[in-house]
């Protein structure tokens, strides 16, 4: 009984310690962001690395999600003779929910895991220590540009995901299932509100961008510097990011639309 209590206590302390370290890490990284003005090159390269290189998976996934939404939506709507609302259904689902959420999940798998592995291996091969000993702060030089890049790239990727999804839905709905093209676009235009829908989606993706990138970078930086350590950290990045995105999505949705 005492043993179990002790284990519980020790696990709680470890978790709290880790949480504390994570927040201090984030604060330290944020203090490095202003210095990046002089080093935009570093940020641009990282945007390429986490953003541009994720384009393919985001594009393909967006296309198929849009196509599936159109198929499923059409089958339901047609029973009520409301298949002309297909455009609204698809666009609302994508812009409010699926765009930010699915793009973030894919981002965590594609770019987050790569960030964790990269930083973890830099730690394991003493590159981070070497930077410290060269009086270069690794949190400012290595981590901050990656953090900013993730923050910038994810909302763009989410927007792209939604846009490609709508095109996919148009292809299936209008092209294959014969929904009226004018109704598809005009209903979408009339019913989607810039503030209510689009901005809230963008806010979600900004929050997810911070959270996913933070988790990925911290897991790498805090990894045990061995092969098992880095592999464990990479797994944790994907799992924690996914859970955090889904949990936060509920909270944000409740705050934004839960009246």
């Amino acid at each position, binding site marked *: 009984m005492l043993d179990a209590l002790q284990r519980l206590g020790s696990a709680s302390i470890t978790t709290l310690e880790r949480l504390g370290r994570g927040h201090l890490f984030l604060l330290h990284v944020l203090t490095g962001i202003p210095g990046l003005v002089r080093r935009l090159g570093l940020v641009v390269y990282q945007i390429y690395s986490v953003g541009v290189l994720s384009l393919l998976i985001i594009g393909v996934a967006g296309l198929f999600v849009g196509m599936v939404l159109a198929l499923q939506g059409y089958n339901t709507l047609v029973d009520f003779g409301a298949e002309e609302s297909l455009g609204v259904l698809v666009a609302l689902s994508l812009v409010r929910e699926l765009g930010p959420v699915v793009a973030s999940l894919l981002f965590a798998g594609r770019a987050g895991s790569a960030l964790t592995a990269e930083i973890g291996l830099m730690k394991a*091969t*003493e*590159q981070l*220590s*070497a930077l*410290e*000993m*060269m*009086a*270069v*702060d690794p949190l400012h*030089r290595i981590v901050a540009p990656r953090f900013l890049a993730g923050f910038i790239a994810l909302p763009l990727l989410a927007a792209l995901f939604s846009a490609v999804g709508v095109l996919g839905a148009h292809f299936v709905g209008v092209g294959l299932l014969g929904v009226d093209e004018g109704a598809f676009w005009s209903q979408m235009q009339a019913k989607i509100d810039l503030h209510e829908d689009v901005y809230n989606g963008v806010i979600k993706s900004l929050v997810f961008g911070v959270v996913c990138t933070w988790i990925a970078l911290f897991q790498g930086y805090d990894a045990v510097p061995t092969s098992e350590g880095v592999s464990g950290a990479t797994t944790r990045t994907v799992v924690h990011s996914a859970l955090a995105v889904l949990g936060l999505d509920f909270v944000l949705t409740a705050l934004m639309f839960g009246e």
Partner: protein
Amino acid sequence: MASNADSQSTRDPIVQIRGLRYFRGSRPIFDGVDIDITRGKLTAIMGPSGTGKTTLLRLIGGQLRPDAGSIIVDGERVEKLDHKGLYQLRKRMGMLFQNGALLTDINVFDNVAFPLREHTRLPESMIRDLVLMKLQAVGLRGAHKLMPSELSGGMSRRVALARAISLDPMMIMYDEPFTGQDPISMGVLVSLLKRLNDALNLTSVLVSHDVKETLSITDYAYVISEGKVVEHGTAEAIKNSKSEWVHQFIHGESDGPVPFHYSAPELMDDLMHGD
């Protein structure tokens, strides 16, 4: 007069460690260690694997904080410095890591240029000249376009050495520079360390358990075991140490105060009864 000034400078240690205690968990790594590193000399810290030699370098570089005692580097208490002070001090130190720790995404030239670009506002043409000179000093000017993955272990360490001296530090710390080297690269590194120390008037701290090579170039050596300094003196003094433990360590004998067998019950008992 000159010799007087000389002896004055040798009495002024660049690193002064007093009463150093450092624990990892509840295990003491250092338990009351006093070390002086003399300016302009090559000082070796020797000891078996796992005695915390690398930890000592990290303590001197301020990457770890001691649990007790003081570490003074060039007149500054390392453990009391804030983040900014520590980074200022580190600009005057170089450190060579066991595997070089080169940044793997940039080539040899950019690795050596890295500290110059980070800490100076020199024009690119001057950086190029400086980098090529540093690479020439370690014999790898011809390799400046290679990526770190294309270098052998010995070459990586030499590039890392060029990087460590690129800001002309006052002191350079070597973490096991000879480990895992073939005889030729070992010879190259040994003579390079000595030549750099003398030519650049550096202070070198060399952590190693390669006894023969280390003692061949060092001016002064400390032998550490189980958290304490067990012997210190010139290479000759260490070789002639009366301590049985030091004798076993220096000559690499398989049995002595450090037994060949890990502590275990009698073999016969173990075979007959088991666990």
